[in-house]
Structure formats: structure tokens, C-alpha cells
């Protein structure tokens, strides 16, 4: 009808032939479907002028067992829970890409998890427009295990597998390129859902928003009974059950 709208929308006209329940004498009914809905506002498309692609766009294969040079032998070590406890302090921001997966808890990534991430993303990714990057180290921490049916004692068991420790807030994988969040979100969500700890899909903007939100809460919180204050002043007799890391992390990162 209107020229201005027609330039943008193709009016979807089609005739539908129907096996009519109304006419018994063999006549067939025709309906003409004419689209009436239209869009008024179109946001300008995003510009991807500043996107630079790395040499290899897909996620690289990671080693199952770390490389040992010469006569070096792997050492069996303590558990060192501190590796997965508390917040990540270094790898918390996106560097090359725009979107990514961020851990929402501590845990160990085994080689199987890493393969799952790699295959899950590489399979669904459009290589022409996107790229993906690892932000984690390959597995390096040995985990020992005693074989089944062994009695206790007899020293520490043998190294069974290696893991990569992850702390709360660490970026695991980045995705970037000439793509929008809605294109990548499903791919990353399916991967993030299968990780051994809670993880969420983020974009650069959402990460910044989270930081802003935290600062805002710090500034404008009216509630005088913060966890810090409660822990200091033994309110409700909390000293009885309060742990060391509760005091350090103020009730977070449990």
C-alpha cells in the first residue's frame, strides 16, 4: 500500500489452496494471505571494522599429559585446595574476543572437559566470521589415585590424571569476530552448562555492567549489617561457626 514501507518489507502475498470442508460439490476455496504487520524501527547494524583475526581461528587441541623434558619425572603433590579457592585475580577480563564463558565457582577441568569445550565450540562456530581462544592453561596438576580393591596404606598412589584448576571468575574461553551476541549465546550456553562448576556466558558489556553493579552496591548500600560487620562483631554468635575463609572472602566463594 505504502511506498515507504514497501522499500523495506517484502509484502508476503500467497494464495492458499485448501481442501474445503464447506463445499461438498467439489469446489475448492482460495484464500489470499496478505501481510499487514510491519516494523517501524530498525537499529543500525553493528560495525566490525576493528576486528582482527588470529592465525588459527578454531580452538587448539590441548595435551592430555603435560610434556616432560629429559629426565624430568612428574611429582606427586599435595591437594593444594587454594588453587581453586577464592576469586580469580588475573584472568577476569576479555582480551581479544567480545564474548566468553566465565566460571562462577572453583573446580578442576579435566582433559575430557577441555575436549568437550573444544569440540562443542568448533563444531558450532562459523569459521569465516568468528574465532575462539583458550584462556586456560593446559592440564598440569597431577591427581593421584589408588587402584580399586587396594587396602589403605602403602604410601601415596600413582598419578592417575592431570587437571587444570579454575577459580571463581576466571575466563575460560573467548569468542570474537564479526558476530553478535545472539549468534554465539546458544553455542556457549550449551558448553557452559556441562562444566563441573557453575559458569555463565558473558559479553564485554555484561562484564562491565557487573563491575558497575558491585561498585554501586558498595557505595549505596543502606543495610548496616554487611557480612563483614557481622563477622567482626560476633552478631548472632556467628564466631562459633565462622570459618577462616568466610572472614577472608566475606561470605563469598564458598
Amino acid at each position, binding site marked *: 500500500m505504502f*511506498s*515507504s514501507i514497501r522499500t523495506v518489507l517484502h509484502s508476503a502475498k500467497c494464495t492458499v489452496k485448501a481442501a474445503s470442508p464447506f463445499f461438498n460439490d467439489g469446489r475448492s476455496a482460495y484464500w489470499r494471505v*496478505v501481510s499487514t504487520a510491519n516494523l517501524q524501527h530498525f537499529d543500525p547494524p553493528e560495525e566490525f571494522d576493528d576486528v582482527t583475526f588470529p592465525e588459527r581461528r578454531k580452538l587448539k587441541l590441548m595435551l592430555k599429559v603435560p610434556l616432560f623434558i629429559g629426565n624430568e619425572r612428574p611429582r606427586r603433590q599435595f591437594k593444594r585446595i587454594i588453587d581453586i579457592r577464592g576469586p580469580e585475580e588475573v584472568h577476569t577480563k576479555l582480551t581479544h574476543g567480545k564474548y566468553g564463558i566465565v566460571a562462577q*565457582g572453583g*573446580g578442576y577441568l579435566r582433559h575430557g572437559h577441555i575436549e568437550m569445550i573444544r569440540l562443542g565450540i568448533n563444531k558450532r562456530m562459523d569459521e569465516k566470521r568468528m574465532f575462539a581462544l583458550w584462556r586456560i592453561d593446559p592440564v598440569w596438576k597431577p591427581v593421584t589415585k589408588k587402584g580399586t580393591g587396594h587396602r589403605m596404606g602403602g604410601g601415596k598412589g600413582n598419578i592417575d590424571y592431570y587437571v587444570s584448576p579454575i577459580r571463581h571468575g576466571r575466563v575460560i574461553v573467548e569468542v570474537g569476530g564479526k558476530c553478535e551476541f545472539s549468534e554465539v549465546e546458544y553455542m556457549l550456553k550449551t558448553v557452559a552448562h556441562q562444566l563441573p562448576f557453575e559458569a555463565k556466558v558473558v559479553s564485554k558489556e555484561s562484564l562491565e555492567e557487573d563491575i558497575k553493579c558491585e561498585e554501586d552496591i558498595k557505595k*549505596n548500600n543502606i543495610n548496616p549489617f554487611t557480612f563483614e560487620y557481622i563477622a567482626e562483631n560476633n552478631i*548472632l554468635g556467628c564466631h562459633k561457626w565462622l570459618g577462616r575463609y568466610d572472614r577472608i572472602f566475606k*561470605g563469598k566463594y564458598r
Partner: protein
Amino acid sequence: MAALMKRNLYVTPWAIVRHKVNLKGKPRPTWYERSIVEKISVPLMPRAPVDYANRCGKLNNQRQQLIQDHPYQDFLIRRCKEMFEKNSMVAVFQQLSASRNEQNKNLNKFRKKGFTCHHFNNLVVKRSIADTKWANMAPLFVSSTFFIASEEAKVKDLVQASKKVTDFVLLGAVADDRLFSKQGLMDYAALPDIETKRAELVGILNHAASNTKSLLERHQQTLSTSLGQFIKQNTQSETLNESNQTETKDGGNSS
């Protein structure tokens, strides 16, 4: 006495307790005291003052504020301005509810006579009209409106076609840099051609001249006619006298 005094045995000031480390993905379930503390320590934000006028979703939809510096919006405004500048006649119609098919049928009646049909959002039109010579048209754009335009001001065709269509209501028009109401358009269309109007004018002008001429000549004419009449009467009386005389002569002879 000293034996009666109860004294605690020595207890270490720190209790060395080995907890099993939580290596699972989820944190341990909270116990009662801790859940109370967690509930208490939830951050409270000051309430932002509520803007009740902007809270109503229905009103917000009606307002439909234009997005500033939106390229698509600018494009529409440019097209709207173009329409006004190119066409010497732009009529505004209100569109009543009708099926799309009927609308098209009605519009075809205009298209057959060489009109073009345009549609713009009312806010877009108001924005493109502001600070131009068409600014006085703004009150027309209230409900669902559309435009019918032509490069020449074919008011007669427009009025004829608008009488035939059922679901369109003519609100007003601009023709030859003149703003018309609906009634004004009707009157304008009812006027005859400019050729006949000119001929009429020439007739009126000629009438005045001929009138003055006739007025000036009137006295002479009446005088001449009266003189003529006088001569006529005189000649008649003379002839009558002569004839009487001859009759008397003839009568004398015969007797």
C-alpha cells in the same frame, strides 16, 4: 578451699579441626544460623523516586518518543520532506478500519487518476514539517493518516475520487501553497475553468464600457426618437387634412 574451687582444664585457644574439603562444584548447603546471617546481610539499595507519569505502559506506547539521530528515522524524514517539496498538491486522509484488500481497492481509484499514495508515521511527519511553510498542518496528524499527492493540483479529480471511496475521510489538503479545509476544497473544486472565468471577467469589463456609452447616448437617442415621432405625427396629420379636403371637393361635384 582451693580444692573446692572448680577450675577448667587447660584448653588450647584454637580448636584444630580438620574439615573435609569441598571439591564439588556446588557449595555446601547452608545451615540455619548461616542462612539467617545471609538473609540479614543482603544489600539494600535506596529506593529511586518513582516517576508515576512515565510508569504507565499504555501512555508510553502512545508517546512513542523518536530515537534521536537514528539513521532510519532521518531517512524517513528526508522522504517525507521530498514528498512535500515535489508535489504541488498533498491531501491528508484519515484511514478508517478496513481490510487491507479494500484499502488497496480504494487506493487504486486514486492511482488510476495519477495520484501517488504515501504513508509516514505521524511523529515523523510532524518532525519533518516543523519550521517549514507547512507547519500549520500539524493538527491534522492525530490518528492513522496517509497522504495522496500529485505534481499538478488536480483538486477536482481528488474530490471526485474521495467521494467514491468509503473508508477514507478527507481531512484537508495543500494545493498551490494554500491550505484548504475539506469544505474549502469542495468549493475550490466547484469553481469553473479559468478560461471561462476570464471570459466572464472580460464580459463584465465590457459591460461597464457599453453601459456608460449607452447612458451618454441616451438623451440624444430619446430626442431623436421623439423628433422622429413628432415628424411622423406631423406628416400623418398633413396627409389626413389633405385627404379631407379632396373628399369635400369630390362630394360637391357629385351633388
